[in-house]
């Protein structure tokens, strides 16, 4: 089959096309700022800003290409993100040397889990990690025979697999929504808006907190987070979901209102939960993979909470039963 650029461009749903153009515009503003700041305020170190902006360009490019290339590419990219996130988590979490091969098996759950989504076996996907991985992992660990720290380790492994693999899988599976279910911008549009709202929430909280933040909200877990940042981010993201969301999602009325109110909370919850884990382990970032941002888990922490919530609010209000029958 020959590639037909004009036909491909025409096949991109209009909201998704303009959404991506909008992101490109924002990234260009960021690039201008990264170039302008060293000129406007010389003498300070602007490396972090430049790294942050460069990393945003790369992340946006990867996600855009995957979304435009279709659901298979989106599933593949998210499976890889799950691998990076799980590798970071299991490398920092307290693990015993006897669990080395259990860690290898944990990576294989990524193939199995995303494989069920690729085969459209949503029902099996739903029980595979929460039921069967949950049962088999502790059994295999018992077979290995090391009982020191057995229970906490089994729990830590399950926590990692659920957040990094199972929860992120919901985001990827949205890309398989047929056009009949998501007529606004297709499945890719649903994924796009989830990512947009989640990252906008992170950025809005940061910007509100930086400019107005005074009252600390969780000083023992995340000392830089403030009530002003939390509430400002909440209001900003809720407005984004309420006014822009209908361009991408089939949800309206009460459902949209619940989405607008709940998604920013979930993003905040994911952020501080990961902060508590990092504080417990004693690290600032989960890795240095993404210059200026930290690790994959530092960037995707909110998404591990928003992805399932977004998915299930859509299913409850728009798809009613199991998705895409």
């Amino acid at each position, binding site marked *: 089959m020959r590639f037909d650029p004009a036909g491909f461009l025409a096949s991109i749903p209009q909201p998704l096309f303009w959404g991506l153009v909008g992101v490109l515009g924002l990234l260009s503003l960021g690039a201008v700022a990264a170039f302008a700041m060293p000129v406007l305020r010389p003498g300070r170190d602007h490396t972090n800003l430049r790294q942050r902006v460069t990393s945003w360009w790369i992340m946006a490019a990867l996600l855009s290409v995957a979304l435009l290339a279709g659901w298979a590419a989106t599933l593949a990219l998210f499976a890889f993100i799950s691998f990076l996130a799980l590798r970071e988590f299991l*490398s920092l979490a307290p693990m015993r040397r006897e669990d*080395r091969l259990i860690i290898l098996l944990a990576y294989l759950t990524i193939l199995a889990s995303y494989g069920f989504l690729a085969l459209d076996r949503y029902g099996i996907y739903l029980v595979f990690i929460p039921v069967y991985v949950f049962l088999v992992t502790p059994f295999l660990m018992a077979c290995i025979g090391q009982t020191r720290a057995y229970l906490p380790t089994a729990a830590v492994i399950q926590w990692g697999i659920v957040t990094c693999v199972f929860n992120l899988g919901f985001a990827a599976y949205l890309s398989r929504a047929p056009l009949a279910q998501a007529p606004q911008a297709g499945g890719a549009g649903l994924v796009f808006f989830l990512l947009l709202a989640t990252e906008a929430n992170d950025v809005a909280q940061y910007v509100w907190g930086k400019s107005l933040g005074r009252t600390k909200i969780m000083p023992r877990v995340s000392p830089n987070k403030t009530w002003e940042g939390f509430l400002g981010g909440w209001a900003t993201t809720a407005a984004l979901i309420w006014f822009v969301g209908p361009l991408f999602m089939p949800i309206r009325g009460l459902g949209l209102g619940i989405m607008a109110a709940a998604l920013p909370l979930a993003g905040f919850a994911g952020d501080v939960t990961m902060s508590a884990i990092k504080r417990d382990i004693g690290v600032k970032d989960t890795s240095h993979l993404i210059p200026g941002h930290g690790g994959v888990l530092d960037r995707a922490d909110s998404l591990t909470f928003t992805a399932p919530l977004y998915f299930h609010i859509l299913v409850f209000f728009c798809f009613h039963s199991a998705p895409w029958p």
Partner: protein
Amino acid sequence: MALIRLLFLMLIGRPIARLMTGADVIGRERLPLKGPAIVAANHNSHVDTVLLLTIFPPQALRWLRPAAAADYFLKDPVIGWFSRNIIGIVPVARAKAGTGVDVLAPARQALLDGAIVIIFPEGTRGPATDEMAQLKSGVARLAEACPSAPVIPIWIEGAGRVLPKGAAIPVPMNCTVLVGEPIGWKGDRNAFMTELRDSLLALGAEAPPQRWI
């Protein structure tokens, strides 16, 4: 051959090292880009060598020569060819140490020829615990022979979990490479070894806890 080595390490070695370890580097700007220089690292896995070779920028690669045990890497002809030509080892005849043979001669010659010699002063792979084994003084003799070469201490955290001694299957886990400030040769072997040891342990203390409990 140098081109084949470069292509192999950059196109195959580097992606594999990234996939298996994440290859986080702290202090990348302190990596030497040309020789003569000595890189002294702790050693828990074969992963250490591949990881160190692939965190350097491509233009530094032609200078990199890991010092490796001749009795281990050169006994099999296939592994021997690979070790010499792709990894680029300088052989150290461990078995002949203490017999009056100068086992460091190839490494010293490489250094004088302008190489960046990678050396694992523990002498062999450790058990991937936090402890570092007693350091062998060969690194001090090399520094003494080439006093213009800075000695860069490097701590590798986590490689012993990816592929510990004796394991056949590698398991991807994040590793962190911490590059320290260069140490110069100041004329005293014992003082040099103490400084190297302290500096390696200080880097290790800075590393994220990528180790077994």
